[in-house]
């Protein structure tokens, strides 16, 4: 009997292949976020693994955050001094530095550093687990891999980024003090008093909220990229890279939105 050969129909796209793929990816990402919240609520809870991941994200990032924070404090103070000294206003330096660090620099720099260090790490780790069937192995040994791998990592970044941000703000202020002290011989008490004089609860609160949002973004983006990796080792590299680029892009977008919302509150 003659076999009927079915003609392969060319695939039709709603807009174009690239745009269709983009919207499908966004849809899949939204579904992934939805699954995260579902798994977060439902037992069993992975407390031990969350603590282990907090250690991996938080404690292991401390050296880099310390170094970056200290340098940020020194550099920002050094760069700001000439402009202020033109108006004879170098006494405002602690206040200016504190506002800049707490409102913008600490959350943003911590977010970007964590996206680079932790985001790429999570993306590559989950990606390689996916392509070497380790995630499937976890599933067949009656462990929910989404809960064990994704939920714990996203929680860890969400918890740890605000803490790292507060720590970085402290270290950056210390760096700024070192610079101010070496030039103006200001005492530490006076530096702190002047520095925190203009810091309000809203400044600190908005920075913590910002960091929580950044932490969640870094975790969920990296986990999504890693967990959905395809195409072998090439895919692992792409997952790590896309985790960092997407997280950083989203962090800047979120920064704009949160600053705008905070400014509305500031008016009231």
């Amino acid at each position: 009997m003659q076999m009927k050969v079915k003609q392969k129909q060319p695939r039709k796209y709603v807009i174009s292949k690239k745009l269709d793929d983009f919207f499908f990816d966004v849809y899949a990402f939204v579904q992934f976020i939805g699954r995260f919240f579902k798994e977060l609520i439902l037992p069993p809870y992975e407390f031990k693994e969350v603590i282990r991941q907090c250690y991996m994200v938080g404690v292991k990032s401390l050296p880099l955050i310390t170094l970056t924070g200290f340098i940020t404090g020194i550099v920002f103070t050094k760069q700001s001094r000439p402009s202020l000294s033109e108006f004879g206003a170098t006494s405002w330096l602690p206040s200016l530095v504190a506002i800049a660090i707490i409102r913008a620099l600490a959350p943003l720099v911590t977010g970007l550093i964590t996206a680079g260090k932790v985001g790429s790490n999570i993306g590559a780790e989950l990606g390689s687990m996916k392509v070497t069937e380790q995630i499937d192995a976890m599933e067949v040994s009656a462990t929910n891999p989404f809960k064990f791998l994704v939920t714990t990592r996203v929680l860890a970044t969400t918890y740890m980024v605000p803490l790292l941000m507060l720590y970085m703000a402290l270290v950056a202020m210390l760096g700024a003090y070192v610079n101010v002290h070496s030039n103006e011989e200001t005492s530490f008490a006076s530096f702190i008093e002047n520095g925190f004089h203009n810091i309000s609860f809203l400044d600190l609160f908005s920075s913590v909220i910002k960091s929580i949002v950044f932490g969640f973004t870094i975790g969920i983006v990296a986990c999504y990229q890693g967990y959905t990796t395809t195409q072998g080792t090439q895919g692992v590299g792409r997952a790590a890279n896309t985790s960092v680029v997407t997280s950083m892009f989203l962090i800047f977008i979120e920064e704009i939105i949160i600053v705008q919302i905070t400014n509305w509150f500031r008016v009231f």
Partner: protein
Amino acid sequence: MKKKELHIDKNKVVITIRDLHKSFASNHVLRGIDLDIYQGENVVVLGRSGTGKSVLIKIIAGLLKSDKGTVNVLGRNVAAIRSRELEQLRLKIGFSFQSSALYDSMTVRENLEFPLLRNSKHLTVAEVTHAVETALDAVGLSQTINQWPAELSGGQRKRIGIARTLIMQPAIMLYDEPTAGLDPVTSMEIIDLINEVQERFNTSSIIITHDLTCAKLTGERMAVLLDGRFVQVGTFETIFKNGDEQVKSFYEYNFIT
């Protein structure tokens, strides 16, 4: 090592597959698979690369969903049960992956402890240690207990992968290309291990392979998968003496006479 004659209980079916279909986009991988696996039996699924052999055992383990048809494992329909029940069923299924799938971030001991600690929370530290040592002893790799997966050879990784599944004392073993990428001597060690697992633990197994030596030495029955269907099911001798041209070409390619 020659395989021992084992008693297979043909009244007790542990896996029943009926009219199983699976597609990936326009690629119809499985086109109506029917198979029964009996208690204590090793069934080898033979076929060329990309014919859906691994897809078949992933559907049995509930890692993939079928498009049509049913898979009953130990009397439970894998596609119809809830996720909690599926987790319980998976405790009775051991899955040896082609890539071994050992957790890179854990030592051999931690790899073996992982399924045990997560699913048998009442166990004491001494009991867990004993179970790990027994499983490692069963695969002859007690000395690797504190090593990292990256420090092991391909054959050792395969054996540790099998030990990790044995620790939960499964009733069914699914082997995905157990001898792929291994030299003949190491392949023979894995083949002996598969037979030893069957003898010692009375497991029923599905062995996915395109290695005819492995197929001949491990399986009581073979099923040849071609174009998404089983074209032949029977013993090694019946299949390759009376097989059609495609099956014969597969045999000739493996250079076994």
